[in-house]
């Protein structure tokens, strides 16, 4: 072996570098920039081999469900103003996340939603009236979680993160290849249960995708008060969990990134964390006043990044959608909203005696006593009405 002067110089003690093993944390880190496959104006960006674009028919369905989802959201807001819902937390502007995420999982997979995921749940095919039961207030969870493989919408923040880990582990333990998809918002990543959930999932290699919709505000508190991390996706590395960040208003990118994350989990490689950068266009709920903590210019800037318009522009340019198809989908959305309106305008029947039915599998003697007391009260009130 001959030695060149340069090689000697490289090997000299003063300049020689010690050979360090590859940093195990590096492979867990997200891209420095959010993954984006469509520009804000809907033009395609260079294709990425790591995030292949979903097939055209899937994108068409993504668009259709986003349009229906937005119409659902608008209708729910209107129903709230009419007093039909007690409260409604809108996810307008987050259609790419809401719909893209649920399209990435199978019907047999489990979804763990929060209160802001009403749109995601209707996109998953759950009856919208059952989805809105919680907010109408005739019961809590309106759908059967075991039928639709969807946990009740979670109001206590981040607590669903550990449920998702446990369910995914339990399913794997029983030989099923179920993936759990846990939704969470930016504010809830400050809660302990987010950290405990992702840590449990990692330790047990449970097939969970944690999907953070960073919509920039936890009611009024901005992201800067939740974290000093470069981005929320960086919270994966400390738990040994790979992560990615994605433009949450790019529906194609959201679906592509979630599809890869779900495949990672299903392949037995453990949990995956995705942070989607998006924006809550509406106040926290109808009861909130967003003008007290953010200015209109900021909201307007995000209006220009509308995910529905972005996908529509792209699919038109690709020839996947034309005027007729768009009109037909818009008609479907109107019909969907009209049916929802009709059904929600019917006064739901509630039965006070049912309050005692599901506290336990069998009511305790004390609950039976209380049920009889309520029954007597109702009978007395009924008799009084009869007298009047």
């Amino acid at each position, binding site marked *: 072996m001959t030695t060149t002067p340069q090689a000697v110089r490289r090997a000299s003690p003063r300049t020689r570098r010690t050979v360090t093993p590859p940093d195990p944390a590096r492979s867990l880190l997200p891209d420095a920039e959010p993954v984006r496959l469509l520009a804000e104006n809907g033009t395609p960006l260079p294709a990425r081999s790591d995030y292949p674009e979903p097939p055209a028919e899937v994108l068409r369905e993504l668009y259709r469900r986003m349009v229906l989802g937005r119409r659902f959201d608008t209708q729910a807001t209107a129903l709230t103003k009419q007093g039909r819902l007690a409260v409604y937390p809108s996810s307008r502007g987050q259609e790419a996340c809401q719909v893209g995420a649920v399209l990435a999982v199978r019907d047999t997979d*489990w979804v763990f939603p929060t209160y802001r995921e009403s749109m995601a749940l209707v996109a998953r095919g759950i009856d919208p009236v059952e989805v809105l039961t919680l907010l109408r207030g005739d*019961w*809590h*969870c309106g759908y*059967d*979680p*075991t*039928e639709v493989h969807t*946990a*009740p919408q979670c109001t*206590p923040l981040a*607590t669903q*993160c*550990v*449920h*998702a*880990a*446990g*369910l*995914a*582990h*339990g*399913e794997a*333990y*029983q030989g099923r290849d*179920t993936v*759990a998809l846990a939704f969470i918002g930016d504010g809830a990543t400050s809660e*302990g*249960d987010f950290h*405990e*959930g992702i*840590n*449990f999932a990692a*330790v047990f290699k449970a097939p969970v995708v944690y999907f953070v919709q960073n919509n920039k505000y936890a009611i009024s508190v901005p992201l800067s008060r939740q974290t000093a991390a470069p981005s929320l996706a960086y919270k994966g590395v400390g738990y040994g969990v790979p992560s990615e960040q994605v433009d949450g208003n790019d529906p194609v990118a959201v679906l592509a990134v979630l599809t890869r994350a779900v495949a990672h989990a299903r392949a037995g490689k453990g949990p995956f964390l995705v942070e989607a950068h998006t924006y809550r266009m509406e106040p926290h709920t109808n009861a909130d006043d967003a003008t007290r903590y953010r200015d209109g210019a900021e909201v307007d800037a995000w209006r220009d990044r509308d995910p529905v318009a972005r996908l529509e522009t792209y699919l038109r340019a690709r020839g996947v959608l034309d005027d007729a198809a768009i009109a037909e989908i818009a008609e479907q959305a109107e019909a969907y909203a009209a049916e929802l309106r009709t059904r929600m305008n019917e006064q739901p029947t509630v039965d006070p005696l*049912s309050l005692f*039915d*599901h*506290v*336990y*599998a069998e009511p*305790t*003697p*004390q609950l039976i006593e209380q049920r009889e007391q309520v029954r007597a009260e109702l009978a007395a009130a009924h008799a009084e009405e009869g007298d009047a």
Partner: protein
Amino acid sequence: MATTMAKALNTALADALAADDRVVVFGEDVGALGGVFRITDGLQARFGENRCFDTPLAEAGIVGFAVGMAMSGLRPVVEMQFDAFAYPAFEQIASHVAKLRNRTRGALSVPIVIRVPYAGGIGGVEHHCDSSEAYYAHTPGLKVVTPATVDDAYSLLREAIEDPDPVVFMEPKKLYFASAEASLPTRNEPFGRAVVRRPGRDATLVAYGPAVPVALEAAEAAREEGWDLEVVDVRTIVPFDDETITASVRRTGRCVVIQEAPGFAGVGAEIAARVQERCFHALHAPVLRVAGLDIPYPAPMLEHTHLPGVDRVLDAVARLQWDDQPDARWAAA
């Protein structure tokens, strides 16, 4: 055969694991170590690491993980290492474990057993001796069970694991290593039944968990004073057995409720109120409570002042209007 409550609980877990593949046992140090009180001793070796395993050190995580596993059809039995260490899990317990059945109109049940070694009398340093039963008993949707005898520990734990509802299973630490004759396996009275541990005619002592041996000892000592006391062991705080306790107090006409937890707003207060509501015309005296002091659990060298012992019970019995005179204790008030 003489055995301890710790061994009876261990046998109950082993028998439950053997009887039902859906049962899994997990928590902190429950694997190779067998738990800090050895309640899970040998279970991992016998049933494998999938069925009895250690978790990260995070109580909310443990209970939340159990919720998810129960949703997948399993029957998790989790250990909280000590009473006060279960507090981080309280949100999971109160908002999810207790409510999921009701929230979903019965569609989703989470039959989890949360084992909580509780109460004091073991010389433990702070945060190791809390009596936390009232927090759970005050939460509709939970069953709250606490054994006082060796064979009941076995029977109640087996029933808890088979129960369709979540059960907070509270194990009195100071009774873990007390030994008694017990032939296991055994099945005693079901949930919702209190048991008369000692019949008597003059007054009823109602107790649960670590207070039951105190009540029995007090009843024995009371014979010398000429009182024949009945002792009722509540066993399951939820569901609560009004019937047995009411029947006993109607017979005796006098009642003292004993608990180790601080008395204010405690389970004993609830029991006293229920007895008074149901037995007013049979009562010869107000229902009295003997409880721990309303203080944070004291340091080991002071715990004997806090714990309700035989003397305090006998003092209360002495105040049960035997001579129909105003209670001197309230005379100044």
